């Protein structure tokens, strides 16, 4: 019989589980019910109050605590996850995706003598567990299965609802971990200033800026400053997250005019992110990357483009407005600011 363990960690406030962890708990509950398997939940760096919030799951709760496990770091996180998996004797380990656990999941699977698969978007199967994931940067979809155990499955964020349950009194088993030797010290987080923050994973909307914003306009001139003001104005009015095509980001390295707030971190597509947002609006984009790869997990999609024949928006976007994005976004910002 399978034994399922869900690994979880705290969010940055240190007072609640990360959203991805709560989504993994939901996936664990669903899978345990389907397979008729016992469920365990493991906490890395948690306390009793957090465990109490999962009391209603009825799962076996295990925790690794201590100052060393408060910071995300390969050596300590891998040791903690390994210890939790061994204590639970798990055959299937569900892991929430995110920088912290994605950094260690494969290493943990190797230490357990098991296997790992990442970026899993769905769990299915009737007689055996099957997992869905994408290959070739979201261009080919496959359903896989594994006979080897333990099987560590890293679930993509946004694929399950976050667990919500009534708090209770949980009985948490503390798992001892021998502190591994480490040469790494985490010294902090480097973030853009609040008003320069253009990447917002929790935003409802993704705004995609293409290279057209920095090209010559009908008057024969380039209007990068105007483009920057319009884009930032839209982001402030809507709290949208900003994505960009590779070509626009790369222009900076080629000495061309660039939007000052864009970095490789904004890049979506082949060598960028494939974010999940309810809505997406692409502007001045004329390539496959943002429309096929970068938009894979965007719900409703609209585009503003001067090219009525852009083959990449056809069949990928719900609506394409053939118009000048400068004029449309200027008017849009005006209307949004009036609307408040």
């Amino acid at each position: 019989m399978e034994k399922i363990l869900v690994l979880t960690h705290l969010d940055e406030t240190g007072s609640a589980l990360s959203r991805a962890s709560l989504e993994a708990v939901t996936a664990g509950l669903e899978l345990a019910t389907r397979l008729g398997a016992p469920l365990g939940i493991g906490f890395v760096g948690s306390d009793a109050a957090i465990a109490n919030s999962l009391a209603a799951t009825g799962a076996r709760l295990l925790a690794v605590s201590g100052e060393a496990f408060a910071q995300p770091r390969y050596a300590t996180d891998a040791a903690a996850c390994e210890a939790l998996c061994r204590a639970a004797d798990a055959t299937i380990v569900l892991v929430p995706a995110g920088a912290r656990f994605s950094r260690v999941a494969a290493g943990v699977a190797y230490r357990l003598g098991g296997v790992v698969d990442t970026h899993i978007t769905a769990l299915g199967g009737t007689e055996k567990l099957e997992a869905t994931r994408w290959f070739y940067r979201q261009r080919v979809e496959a359903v896989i299965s594994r006979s080897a155990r333990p099987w560590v499955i890293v679930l993509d964020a946004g694929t399950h609802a976050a667990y919500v349950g009534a708090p209770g009194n949980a009985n948490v088993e503390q798992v001892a971990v021998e502190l591994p030797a480490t040469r790494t010290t985490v010294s902090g987080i480097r973030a853009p200033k609040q008003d320069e923050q253009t990447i917002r994973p929790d935003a409802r909307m993704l705004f995609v800026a293409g290279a057209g914003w920095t090209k010559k306009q009908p008057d024969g001139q380039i209007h990068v400053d105007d483009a920057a003001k319009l884009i930032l104005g839209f982001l402030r009015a809507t709290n949208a997250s900003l994505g960009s095509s590779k070509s626009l980001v790369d222009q900076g390295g080629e000495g061309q005019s660039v939007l000052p707030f864009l970095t490789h971190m904004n890049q979506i597509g082949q060598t960028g992110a494939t974010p999940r947002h309810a809505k997406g609006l692409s502007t001045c984009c004329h390539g496959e990357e943002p429309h096929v790869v970068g938009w894979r997990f965007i719900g409703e999609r609209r585009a503003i483009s001067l090219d009525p024949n852009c083959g990449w928006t056809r069949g990928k976007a719900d609506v394409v407005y053939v118009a000048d994005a400068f004029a449309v976004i200027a008017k849009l910002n005006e209307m949004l600011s009036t609307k408040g």
Partner: protein
Amino acid sequence: MPSQLHIVVCAGIVPDPLQTLEPITTPSGPGLKNEMVLPAVLDPWAACALYEAAHLAAKNPGSKLWLVSLGPKAKLQQVMMTVAQKVAFELVPIDGPIGGFPDAHATAAAIASTIEAIPGVDRSKLLIFGGWESATRGACVTLQIVGERLGITEQFQGVDQIDMRDDGSFEVLERIEGGRHQVSVCSSAPAVLGWATGNLAEPRNNPQIGMANMRSMMPALQKAKAATLDTNGLSYVSVSLPKQQRTTRVVKDMTPDQIAAELVEWIGAE
């Protein structure tokens, strides 16, 4: 005083991103139609790792740079004709299957044993670079397991920057959620760094570097050891292209004001 580093970059080859991909079933499992004739490039994130490694090696005189790459020999040779003109390195090829469908654990095992066998690699100076994910599997698995197999537990993923210090320690910036970086300091090598894009532009082709690289590259390709990759119990239930095709409404006759009004309504709708 700069540190002398031994940097091993692990990089696969992938179909050119502009190619149309069509999955098919082959005797050895899933594959891509015409995979061997599709134009290939060095894996994009791993290529960033290579450029960062070359930059780091140049800043630390006496450093050495190897490129370990697994793929069919003929395909490797084709891709290396271009890559060799970018930066100076010593190629360590492994003759193996192409594509994203072979198991990552087996790939990691082949790469780890190859790195162990590279003559002259000093573990106390060793930095293992690669892309944090590939453009084929995109799994963030191979490098971690390579590190574990080599007993290296200082690992970083989604790296955008490394700054070496005079005492041999180095600061690493790793991508985390929300467009931010986690800053860590590692006191010394060895370490594994899975790179995101980094900060360097792609170097221009330099035929002189290409000529120098090719002198050692061709013999290395001829001597490349063959690797057979185990499936580790991995089976594919289905492999397909996404079928979702949207009915696109192309709007050509609306003024900017009308479009903006429609978008305001759309943005506000739940």
